[in-house]
Protein backbone atom coordinates (compact mmCIF):
# COMPACT_ATOMS: atom_id res chain seq x y z
CA UNK A 1 0.00 0.00 0.00
CA UNK A 2 0.93 3.59 -0.52
CA UNK A 3 0.19 6.28 1.94
CA UNK A 4 -0.55 9.88 1.23
CA UNK A 5 2.51 12.06 0.98
CA UNK A 6 3.09 15.75 1.41
CA UNK A 7 -0.32 16.35 2.87
CA UNK A 8 0.68 18.83 5.53
CA UNK A 9 3.60 20.92 6.69
CA UNK A 10 4.64 24.26 5.29
CA UNK A 11 7.57 22.78 3.41
CA UNK A 12 5.19 20.39 1.70
CA UNK A 13 7.86 17.74 2.01
CA UNK A 14 6.57 15.49 4.77
CA UNK A 15 6.53 11.79 4.05
CA UNK A 16 4.24 9.51 5.98
CA UNK A 17 5.12 5.96 6.89
CA UNK A 18 2.19 3.86 8.03
CA UNK A 19 2.90 0.97 10.37
CA UNK A 20 0.26 -1.65 11.21
CA UNK A 21 1.17 -3.39 14.44
CA UNK A 22 -0.47 -5.90 16.76
CA UNK A 23 -2.09 -4.21 19.72
CA UNK A 24 0.33 -5.81 22.18
CA UNK A 25 3.17 -3.88 20.52
CA UNK A 26 1.66 -0.51 21.28
CA UNK A 27 4.10 0.78 23.89
CA UNK A 28 7.25 -0.48 22.23
CA UNK A 29 6.32 0.63 18.72
CA UNK A 30 5.37 4.12 19.87
CA UNK A 31 8.91 4.42 21.23
CA UNK A 32 10.38 2.97 18.05
CA UNK A 33 8.37 5.34 15.88
CA UNK A 34 9.74 8.28 17.81
CA UNK A 35 13.27 7.05 17.32
CA UNK A 36 12.60 6.62 13.61
CA UNK A 37 11.15 10.12 13.23
CA UNK A 38 14.17 11.55 15.06
CA UNK A 39 16.46 9.80 12.64
CA UNK A 40 14.51 10.66 9.49
CA UNK A 41 13.76 14.32 8.98
CA UNK A 42 10.43 15.03 7.39
CA UNK A 43 9.08 11.55 8.02
CA UNK A 44 5.91 11.14 9.99
CA UNK A 45 5.23 7.65 11.32
CA UNK A 46 1.56 6.79 11.68
CA UNK A 47 0.77 3.78 13.80
CA UNK A 48 -2.34 1.67 13.58
CA UNK A 49 -2.88 -0.88 16.31
CA UNK A 50 -5.48 -3.63 16.31
CA UNK A 51 -5.68 -7.39 16.65
CA UNK A 52 -3.40 -9.13 14.17
CA UNK A 53 -6.28 -10.71 12.33
CA UNK A 54 -8.07 -7.36 12.02
CA UNK A 55 -4.96 -5.87 10.52
CA UNK A 56 -4.59 -8.75 8.09
CA UNK A 57 -8.16 -8.27 6.92
CA UNK A 58 -7.53 -4.58 6.45
CA UNK A 59 -4.35 -5.09 4.46
CA UNK A 60 -6.18 -7.63 2.33
CA UNK A 61 -8.82 -4.98 1.63
CA UNK A 62 -6.19 -2.50 0.55
CA UNK A 63 -5.45 -0.56 3.71
CA UNK A 64 -2.60 1.92 3.20
CA UNK A 65 0.03 0.06 5.27
CA UNK A 66 3.75 0.24 4.64
CA UNK A 67 4.89 -2.11 7.41
CA UNK A 68 3.06 -4.93 9.15
CA UNK A 69 4.14 -6.35 12.49
CA UNK A 70 2.16 -9.39 13.58
CA UNK A 71 1.81 -11.04 16.97
CA UNK A 72 2.05 -14.49 15.42
CA UNK A 73 3.32 -16.21 12.32
CA UNK A 74 -0.07 -17.62 11.31
CA UNK A 75 -1.48 -14.19 10.51
CA UNK A 76 1.68 -13.11 8.73
CA UNK A 77 1.49 -16.27 6.65
CA UNK A 78 -1.91 -15.25 5.36
CA UNK A 79 -0.43 -12.09 3.84
CA UNK A 80 2.55 -14.00 2.53
CA UNK A 81 0.20 -16.41 0.84
CA UNK A 82 -1.64 -13.49 -0.76
CA UNK A 83 1.69 -12.03 -1.87
CA UNK A 84 0.92 -8.82 -0.04
CA UNK A 85 4.12 -8.53 2.01
CA UNK A 86 7.80 -8.79 1.40
CA UNK A 87 10.04 -11.21 3.22
CA UNK A 88 8.92 -11.45 6.87
CA UNK A 89 11.55 -11.49 9.61
CA UNK A 90 11.09 -12.50 13.24
CA UNK A 91 11.91 -9.64 15.58
CA UNK A 92 10.73 -10.72 19.02
CA UNK A 93 9.41 -13.63 21.00
CA UNK A 94 7.09 -13.85 23.90
CA UNK A 95 6.29 -16.63 26.36
CA UNK A 96 3.36 -17.34 28.60
CA UNK A 97 3.14 -16.48 32.23
CA UNK A 98 0.49 -17.04 34.86
CA UNK A 99 -1.19 -13.80 35.82
CA UNK A 100 -2.87 -13.61 39.23
CA UNK A 101 -4.45 -10.75 41.12
CA UNK A 102 -1.94 -8.95 43.38
CA UNK A 103 -3.07 -10.81 46.52
CA UNK A 104 -3.12 -14.17 44.69
CA UNK A 105 -6.34 -15.33 46.42
CA UNK A 106 -6.09 -18.93 45.14
CA UNK A 107 -2.41 -19.23 46.08
CA UNK A 108 -1.28 -20.26 42.61
CA UNK A 109 2.44 -21.17 42.55
CA UNK A 110 2.80 -23.63 39.69
CA UNK A 111 1.09 -24.51 36.45
CA UNK A 112 -0.33 -27.62 38.07
CA UNK A 113 -2.14 -25.47 40.63
CA UNK A 114 -4.33 -24.22 37.79
CA UNK A 115 -5.97 -27.63 37.54
CA UNK A 116 -7.40 -27.37 41.05
CA UNK A 117 -11.18 -27.41 40.86
CA UNK A 118 -11.74 -24.29 42.99
CA UNK A 119 -9.41 -22.11 40.96
CA UNK A 120 -11.31 -19.86 38.56
CA UNK A 121 -9.07 -20.02 35.54
CA UNK A 122 -9.45 -18.08 32.32
CA UNK A 123 -7.58 -18.91 29.14
CA UNK A 124 -7.57 -17.69 25.59
CA UNK A 125 -9.76 -19.70 23.24
CA UNK A 126 -7.77 -22.24 21.22
CA UNK A 127 -8.67 -20.40 18.04
CA UNK A 128 -6.58 -17.35 18.95
CA UNK A 129 -2.75 -17.42 19.14
CA UNK A 130 -2.42 -17.15 22.91
CA UNK A 131 -4.97 -19.92 23.27
CA UNK A 132 -3.04 -22.14 20.95
CA UNK A 133 0.05 -21.50 23.03
CA UNK A 134 -1.86 -22.28 26.21
CA UNK A 135 -3.00 -25.57 24.73
CA UNK A 136 0.61 -26.44 23.91
CA UNK A 137 1.84 -25.91 27.47
CA UNK A 138 -1.18 -27.75 28.80
CA UNK A 139 -0.24 -30.71 26.61
CA UNK A 140 3.41 -30.46 27.48
CA UNK A 141 2.60 -30.50 31.17
CA UNK A 142 0.11 -33.30 30.75
CA UNK A 143 -2.63 -31.31 32.49
CA UNK A 144 -6.35 -31.09 31.86
CA UNK A 145 -7.27 -27.50 32.60
CA UNK A 146 -10.95 -26.59 33.09
CA UNK A 147 -11.25 -22.86 32.41
CA UNK A 148 -14.42 -20.98 33.35
CA UNK A 149 -13.97 -18.94 30.21
CA UNK A 150 -12.10 -19.15 26.93
CA UNK A 151 -11.45 -15.56 26.04
CA UNK A 152 -11.14 -13.81 22.75
CA UNK A 153 -7.83 -12.09 23.42
CA UNK A 154 -5.09 -11.67 25.96
CA UNK A 155 -6.60 -8.36 26.97
CA UNK A 156 -9.83 -10.08 27.88
CA UNK A 157 -7.98 -12.63 30.01
CA UNK A 158 -5.98 -9.93 31.71
CA UNK A 159 -9.11 -7.87 32.27
CA UNK A 160 -10.74 -10.68 34.25
CA UNK A 161 -7.64 -11.18 36.38
CA UNK A 162 -7.21 -7.47 37.06
CA UNK A 163 -10.84 -7.20 38.12
CA UNK A 164 -10.27 -10.12 40.49
CA UNK A 165 -13.03 -11.98 38.74
CA UNK A 166 -10.67 -14.84 37.85
CA UNK A 167 -8.08 -16.32 40.18
CA UNK A 168 -5.57 -16.90 37.41
CA UNK A 169 -5.04 -16.59 33.71
CA UNK A 170 -2.43 -17.48 31.15
CA UNK A 171 -1.05 -14.44 29.35
CA UNK A 172 2.22 -13.25 27.84
CA UNK A 173 5.14 -12.02 29.85
CA UNK A 174 4.88 -8.63 28.15
CA UNK A 175 1.28 -8.29 29.20
CA UNK A 176 2.14 -8.84 32.85
CA UNK A 177 4.90 -6.26 32.50
CA UNK A 178 2.54 -3.73 30.89
CA UNK A 179 -0.12 -4.22 33.55
CA UNK A 180 2.28 -3.08 36.28
CA UNK A 181 0.92 -3.43 39.79
CA UNK A 182 -2.50 -4.55 38.72
CA UNK A 183 -1.44 -8.20 38.41
CA UNK A 184 1.33 -10.39 39.59
CA UNK A 185 3.17 -12.76 37.29
CA UNK A 186 3.96 -16.37 38.15
CA UNK A 187 6.58 -17.86 35.84
CA UNK A 188 6.54 -21.56 35.09
CA UNK A 189 9.08 -23.75 33.32
CA UNK A 190 6.62 -25.35 30.89
CA UNK A 191 6.28 -21.98 29.11
CA UNK A 192 9.30 -22.89 26.98
CA UNK A 193 7.19 -25.35 25.06
CA UNK A 194 5.18 -22.52 23.49
CA UNK A 195 7.34 -19.66 22.35
CA UNK A 196 5.40 -17.10 20.36
CA UNK A 197 7.26 -15.39 17.55
CA UNK A 198 6.55 -11.87 16.22
CA UNK A 199 7.34 -11.40 12.52
CA UNK A 200 7.58 -8.05 10.72
CA UNK A 201 7.57 -7.30 6.99
CA UNK A 202 7.27 -4.38 4.62
CA UNK A 203 3.98 -4.39 2.76
CA UNK A 204 4.51 -4.92 -0.96
CA UNK A 205 3.08 -2.80 -3.72
CA UNK A 206 4.39 0.57 -2.53
CA UNK A 207 6.37 3.09 -4.53
CA UNK A 208 10.14 2.80 -4.41
CA UNK A 209 10.58 5.59 -1.93
CA UNK A 210 7.96 4.15 0.44
CA UNK A 211 9.42 0.65 0.14
CA UNK A 212 12.80 2.07 1.06
CA UNK A 213 11.45 3.81 4.11
CA UNK A 214 9.51 0.70 5.13
CA UNK A 215 12.64 -1.42 4.92
CA UNK A 216 14.49 1.14 7.02
CA UNK A 217 11.81 0.86 9.71
CA UNK A 218 12.05 -2.93 9.67
CA UNK A 219 15.80 -2.57 9.99
CA UNK A 220 15.37 -0.29 12.99
CA UNK A 221 13.18 -2.85 14.72
CA UNK A 222 15.78 -5.55 14.11
CA UNK A 223 18.70 -3.35 15.12
CA UNK A 224 20.26 -3.47 18.56
CA UNK A 225 18.52 -0.23 19.52
CA UNK A 226 15.25 -1.67 18.47
CA UNK A 227 15.79 -4.92 20.30
CA UNK A 228 16.75 -3.03 23.42
CA UNK A 229 13.54 -1.02 23.29
CA UNK A 230 11.52 -4.21 22.87
CA UNK A 231 13.31 -5.84 25.75
CA UNK A 232 12.32 -2.89 27.90
CA UNK A 233 8.71 -3.93 27.34
CA UNK A 234 9.37 -7.55 28.25
CA UNK A 235 9.95 -9.08 24.84
CA UNK A 236 12.65 -11.65 24.33
CA UNK A 237 14.91 -11.77 21.31
CA UNK A 238 13.89 -14.12 18.50
Amino acid sequence: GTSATGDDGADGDTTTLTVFAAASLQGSFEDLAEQFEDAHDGVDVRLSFAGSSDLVAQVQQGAPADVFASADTANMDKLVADDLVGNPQDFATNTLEIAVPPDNPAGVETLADLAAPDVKLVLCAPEVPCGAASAKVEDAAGLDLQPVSEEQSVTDVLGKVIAGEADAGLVYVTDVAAAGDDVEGVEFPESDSAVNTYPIAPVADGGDEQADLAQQFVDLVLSDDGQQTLAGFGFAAP
Partner: protein
Amino acid sequence: MRVSTGSTTGRTGSTTGGAAAVGLPRWAFAPAAVGGLFVLLPLVAMATRVDWSSYWSLVTSESARAALLLSLQTSAASTVVCLVLGVPMALVLARCRFPGIDLLRSLVMVPLVLPPVVGGIALLYTFGRRGLLGETLEVAGLQIAFSTTAVVLAQTFVALPFLVMSLEGALRTAGARYEVVAASLGARPTTVLRRVTLPLVWPGLLSGAVLSFARALGEFGATITFAGSLQGVTRTLPLEIYLQRETDPDAAVALSLLLVVVAVLVIAATRQGRPGRSVL
Protein backbone atom coordinates in the same frame (compact mmCIF):
# COMPACT_ATOMS: atom_id res chain seq x y z
CA MET B 1 -47.90 2.45 -4.18
CA ARG B 2 -50.85 4.01 -2.41
CA VAL B 3 -49.32 7.35 -1.90
CA SER B 4 -49.30 9.93 -4.62
CA THR B 5 -46.10 11.77 -5.19
CA GLY B 6 -47.16 15.33 -5.54
CA SER B 7 -48.10 15.31 -9.19
CA THR B 8 -51.00 17.52 -10.07
CA THR B 9 -52.94 14.83 -11.83
CA GLY B 10 -51.30 11.55 -11.02
CA ARG B 11 -52.63 8.19 -12.03
CA THR B 12 -52.38 5.75 -9.24
CA GLY B 13 -53.91 2.37 -8.85
CA SER B 14 -55.45 1.61 -5.51
CA THR B 15 -57.22 -1.58 -4.64
CA THR B 16 -59.91 -0.21 -2.37
CA GLY B 17 -61.55 3.05 -1.41
CA GLY B 18 -60.89 4.59 1.94
CA ALA B 19 -58.55 6.94 3.67
CA ALA B 20 -56.10 8.78 1.48
CA ALA B 21 -52.90 10.32 2.75
CA VAL B 22 -51.10 13.44 1.73
CA GLY B 23 -48.36 12.58 -0.73
CA LEU B 24 -44.70 12.79 0.10
CA PRO B 25 -42.70 15.26 -1.94
CA ARG B 26 -41.32 13.33 -4.88
CA TRP B 27 -37.73 14.32 -4.14
CA ALA B 28 -37.91 12.57 -0.79
CA PHE B 29 -37.73 9.19 -2.46
CA ALA B 30 -34.20 9.72 -3.77
CA PRO B 31 -32.39 10.08 -0.42
CA ALA B 32 -34.64 7.39 1.02
CA ALA B 33 -33.50 5.01 -1.70
CA VAL B 34 -29.86 5.95 -1.15
CA GLY B 35 -30.30 5.33 2.56
CA GLY B 36 -31.96 2.00 1.92
CA LEU B 37 -29.17 0.92 -0.41
CA PHE B 38 -26.56 2.06 2.07
CA VAL B 39 -27.94 -0.39 4.59
CA LEU B 40 -28.80 -3.17 2.15
CA LEU B 41 -25.69 -3.25 -0.03
CA PRO B 42 -23.36 -4.35 2.78
CA LEU B 43 -25.75 -7.20 3.50
CA VAL B 44 -25.71 -8.21 -0.14
CA ALA B 45 -21.94 -7.92 -0.20
CA MET B 46 -21.79 -10.24 2.79
CA ALA B 47 -24.09 -12.73 1.15
CA THR B 48 -21.95 -12.84 -1.99
CA ARG B 49 -18.93 -13.87 0.08
CA VAL B 50 -20.61 -16.86 1.65
CA ASP B 51 -19.65 -20.29 0.41
CA TRP B 52 -23.18 -21.61 0.15
CA SER B 53 -22.12 -25.23 -0.47
CA SER B 54 -20.74 -25.55 3.04
CA TYR B 55 -23.20 -23.14 4.59
CA TRP B 56 -25.63 -25.69 5.94
CA SER B 57 -23.03 -27.82 7.65
CA LEU B 58 -21.46 -24.71 9.11
CA VAL B 59 -24.58 -23.32 10.70
CA THR B 60 -25.66 -26.72 11.98
CA SER B 61 -22.32 -27.51 13.59
CA GLU B 62 -22.58 -28.27 17.28
CA SER B 63 -20.88 -25.07 18.38
CA ALA B 64 -23.06 -22.93 16.11
CA ARG B 65 -26.23 -24.57 17.32
CA ALA B 66 -25.24 -24.21 20.97
CA ALA B 67 -24.39 -20.57 20.42
CA LEU B 68 -27.64 -19.82 18.59
CA LEU B 69 -29.70 -21.54 21.26
CA LEU B 70 -27.92 -19.69 24.05
CA SER B 71 -28.33 -16.41 22.19
CA LEU B 72 -32.05 -16.89 21.75
CA GLN B 73 -32.54 -17.91 25.39
CA THR B 74 -30.51 -15.10 26.89
CA SER B 75 -31.96 -12.49 24.54
CA ALA B 76 -35.47 -13.56 25.44
CA ALA B 77 -34.60 -13.43 29.13
CA SER B 78 -33.05 -10.00 28.88
CA THR B 79 -36.03 -8.71 26.91
CA VAL B 80 -38.24 -9.81 29.79
CA VAL B 81 -35.95 -8.09 32.32
CA CYS B 82 -35.95 -4.98 30.12
CA LEU B 83 -39.75 -4.98 30.10
CA VAL B 84 -40.02 -5.45 33.85
CA LEU B 85 -37.58 -2.64 34.61
CA GLY B 86 -37.96 -0.48 31.53
CA VAL B 87 -41.73 -0.03 31.37
CA PRO B 88 -41.89 1.57 34.83
CA MET B 89 -38.81 3.64 34.02
CA ALA B 90 -40.40 4.96 30.85
CA LEU B 91 -43.61 5.73 32.73
CA VAL B 92 -41.75 7.68 35.37
CA LEU B 93 -39.70 9.57 32.80
CA ALA B 94 -42.72 10.40 30.67
CA ARG B 95 -45.25 11.22 33.35
CA CYS B 96 -43.48 12.54 36.42
CA ARG B 97 -41.87 15.88 36.91
CA PHE B 98 -39.30 16.33 39.63
CA PRO B 99 -35.99 18.15 39.82
CA GLY B 100 -33.19 16.25 38.15
CA ILE B 101 -35.40 14.18 35.89
CA ASP B 102 -33.71 15.55 32.80
CA LEU B 103 -30.33 14.51 34.10
CA LEU B 104 -31.74 11.11 34.97
CA ARG B 105 -33.12 10.70 31.48
CA SER B 106 -29.73 11.52 29.98
CA LEU B 107 -27.96 9.09 32.29
CA VAL B 108 -30.31 6.27 31.36
CA MET B 109 -29.17 6.73 27.76
CA VAL B 110 -25.52 6.29 28.68
CA PRO B 111 -25.28 2.56 27.83
CA LEU B 112 -26.06 3.59 24.25
CA VAL B 113 -22.96 5.70 23.95
CA LEU B 114 -20.64 3.65 26.12
CA PRO B 115 -18.54 1.31 24.01
CA PRO B 116 -19.87 -2.09 25.08
CA VAL B 117 -16.48 -3.27 26.28
CA VAL B 118 -16.37 -0.35 28.69
CA GLY B 119 -19.90 -1.21 29.73
CA GLY B 120 -18.69 -4.70 30.49
CA ILE B 121 -15.85 -3.32 32.60
CA ALA B 122 -18.32 -1.14 34.48
CA LEU B 123 -20.51 -4.16 35.13
CA LEU B 124 -17.47 -6.07 36.42
CA TYR B 125 -16.74 -3.20 38.78
CA THR B 126 -20.34 -3.40 40.01
CA PHE B 127 -21.38 -7.05 40.07
CA GLY B 128 -17.92 -8.68 39.99
CA ARG B 129 -16.46 -10.47 42.97
CA ARG B 130 -14.59 -7.34 43.99
CA GLY B 131 -17.18 -4.94 42.66
CA LEU B 132 -19.43 -2.50 44.48
CA LEU B 133 -22.11 -5.11 45.12
CA GLY B 134 -19.82 -8.13 44.89
CA GLU B 135 -19.62 -8.82 48.59
CA THR B 136 -23.31 -8.27 49.14
CA LEU B 137 -24.06 -10.71 46.36
CA GLU B 138 -21.53 -13.22 47.61
CA VAL B 139 -23.07 -13.14 51.07
CA ALA B 140 -26.43 -13.73 49.40
CA GLY B 141 -24.90 -16.77 47.76
CA LEU B 142 -25.10 -15.36 44.26
CA GLN B 143 -22.20 -16.02 41.92
CA ILE B 144 -22.79 -14.04 38.79
CA ALA B 145 -19.42 -14.06 37.07
CA PHE B 146 -18.91 -16.49 34.16
CA SER B 147 -22.54 -17.62 34.37
CA THR B 148 -25.42 -17.32 31.96
CA THR B 149 -26.89 -14.77 34.38
CA ALA B 150 -23.95 -12.53 33.60
CA VAL B 151 -24.79 -12.74 29.90
CA VAL B 152 -28.36 -11.69 30.60
CA LEU B 153 -27.17 -8.81 32.78
CA ALA B 154 -24.77 -7.60 30.10
CA GLN B 155 -27.45 -7.80 27.42
CA THR B 156 -29.99 -6.06 29.64
CA PHE B 157 -27.54 -3.26 30.35
CA VAL B 158 -27.03 -2.45 26.69
CA ALA B 159 -30.63 -3.13 25.61
CA LEU B 160 -32.54 -1.31 28.36
CA PRO B 161 -32.18 2.21 26.89
CA PHE B 162 -33.81 1.02 23.66
CA LEU B 163 -36.95 -0.02 25.45
CA VAL B 164 -37.09 3.03 27.71
CA MET B 165 -36.51 5.41 24.82
CA SER B 166 -38.98 4.05 22.42
CA LEU B 167 -41.68 3.63 25.06
CA GLU B 168 -41.11 7.06 26.58
CA GLY B 169 -41.46 8.64 23.16
CA ALA B 170 -44.71 6.78 22.56
CA LEU B 171 -46.06 7.80 25.96
CA ARG B 172 -45.26 11.45 25.36
CA THR B 173 -46.80 11.49 21.94
CA ALA B 174 -49.92 9.69 23.12
CA GLY B 175 -50.37 12.29 25.85
CA ALA B 176 -52.35 11.83 29.03
CA ARG B 177 -55.80 12.83 27.83
CA TYR B 178 -57.23 9.33 27.69
CA GLU B 179 -55.74 8.55 31.08
CA VAL B 180 -57.55 11.53 32.55
CA VAL B 181 -60.83 10.33 31.08
CA ALA B 182 -60.27 6.83 32.45
CA ALA B 183 -59.49 8.17 35.91
CA SER B 184 -62.62 10.30 35.91
CA LEU B 185 -64.58 7.11 35.18
CA GLY B 186 -63.23 5.73 38.44
CA ALA B 187 -60.27 3.67 37.22
CA ARG B 188 -57.42 3.39 39.72
CA PRO B 189 -53.92 4.16 38.43
CA THR B 190 -53.13 0.47 38.03
CA THR B 191 -56.32 -0.05 36.03
CA VAL B 192 -55.58 3.01 33.90
CA LEU B 193 -52.12 1.63 33.19
CA ARG B 194 -53.34 -1.84 32.30
CA ARG B 195 -56.46 -0.99 30.34
CA VAL B 196 -55.66 2.39 28.77
CA THR B 197 -52.03 3.49 28.84
CA LEU B 198 -50.34 0.28 27.78
CA PRO B 199 -52.86 -0.69 25.08
CA LEU B 200 -52.60 2.83 23.63
CA VAL B 201 -48.81 2.73 23.38
CA TRP B 202 -48.80 -0.91 22.29
CA PRO B 203 -46.94 -0.20 19.01
CA GLY B 204 -44.24 1.71 20.88
CA LEU B 205 -43.98 -1.01 23.51
CA LEU B 206 -43.75 -3.72 20.90
CA SER B 207 -41.12 -1.98 18.86
CA GLY B 208 -39.19 -1.20 22.02
CA ALA B 209 -39.24 -4.87 22.97
CA VAL B 210 -38.17 -5.94 19.49
CA LEU B 211 -35.33 -3.45 19.51
CA SER B 212 -34.17 -4.63 22.92
CA PHE B 213 -34.27 -8.20 21.72
CA ALA B 214 -32.34 -7.33 18.58
CA ARG B 215 -29.75 -5.37 20.51
CA ALA B 216 -29.37 -8.22 23.01
CA LEU B 217 -29.01 -10.69 20.16
CA GLY B 218 -26.12 -8.72 18.65
CA GLU B 219 -24.41 -7.93 21.94
CA PHE B 220 -20.72 -8.80 22.03
CA GLY B 221 -18.40 -6.40 23.85
CA ALA B 222 -20.07 -6.24 27.24
CA THR B 223 -20.69 -9.97 27.23
CA ILE B 224 -17.11 -10.99 26.55
CA THR B 225 -15.79 -8.51 29.09
CA PHE B 226 -18.25 -9.25 31.85
CA ALA B 227 -19.33 -12.83 31.29
CA GLY B 228 -16.48 -14.45 29.41
CA SER B 229 -16.86 -17.00 26.66
CA LEU B 230 -17.54 -20.67 27.34
CA GLN B 231 -19.44 -22.87 24.94
CA GLY B 232 -23.00 -23.53 26.08
CA VAL B 233 -22.71 -21.25 29.10
CA THR B 234 -21.70 -17.79 27.99
CA ARG B 235 -20.63 -18.09 24.37
CA THR B 236 -23.48 -16.48 22.44
CA LEU B 237 -23.65 -16.35 18.66
CA PRO B 238 -21.76 -13.05 18.31
CA LEU B 239 -18.96 -14.45 20.47
CA GLU B 240 -18.90 -17.58 18.33
CA ILE B 241 -18.70 -15.39 15.23
CA TYR B 242 -15.69 -13.53 16.62
CA LEU B 243 -13.94 -16.72 17.42
CA GLN B 244 -14.60 -18.15 13.99
CA ARG B 245 -13.21 -14.99 12.51
CA GLU B 246 -9.76 -15.78 13.92
CA THR B 247 -9.51 -18.96 11.93
CA ASP B 248 -11.98 -18.61 9.10
CA PRO B 249 -13.32 -15.11 8.34
CA ASP B 250 -15.69 -16.41 5.69
CA ALA B 251 -17.28 -18.77 8.17
CA ALA B 252 -17.72 -15.85 10.51
CA VAL B 253 -19.55 -13.95 7.80
CA ALA B 254 -21.73 -16.97 7.15
CA LEU B 255 -22.65 -17.17 10.82
CA SER B 256 -23.35 -13.44 10.87
CA LEU B 257 -25.80 -13.99 8.08
CA LEU B 258 -27.55 -16.53 10.30
CA LEU B 259 -27.79 -13.86 13.00
CA VAL B 260 -29.23 -11.40 10.50
CA VAL B 261 -31.82 -13.88 9.31
CA VAL B 262 -32.90 -14.68 12.86
CA ALA B 263 -33.16 -11.01 13.71
CA VAL B 264 -35.13 -10.15 10.58
CA LEU B 265 -37.49 -13.04 11.25
CA VAL B 266 -38.11 -11.88 14.81
CA ILE B 267 -38.62 -8.26 13.79
CA ALA B 268 -40.89 -9.15 10.88
CA ALA B 269 -42.94 -11.59 12.96
CA THR B 270 -43.61 -8.95 15.56
CA ARG B 271 -44.52 -6.34 12.95
CA GLN B 272 -47.31 -8.60 11.76
CA GLY B 273 -49.32 -8.02 14.91
CA ARG B 274 -49.01 -4.27 14.60
CA PRO B 275 -52.25 -2.71 13.46
CA GLY B 276 -52.11 0.09 10.95
CA ARG B 277 -53.39 3.44 12.13
CA SER B 278 -56.15 4.92 10.11
CA VAL B 279 -55.30 8.21 8.51
CA LEU B 280 -58.21 10.44 9.38
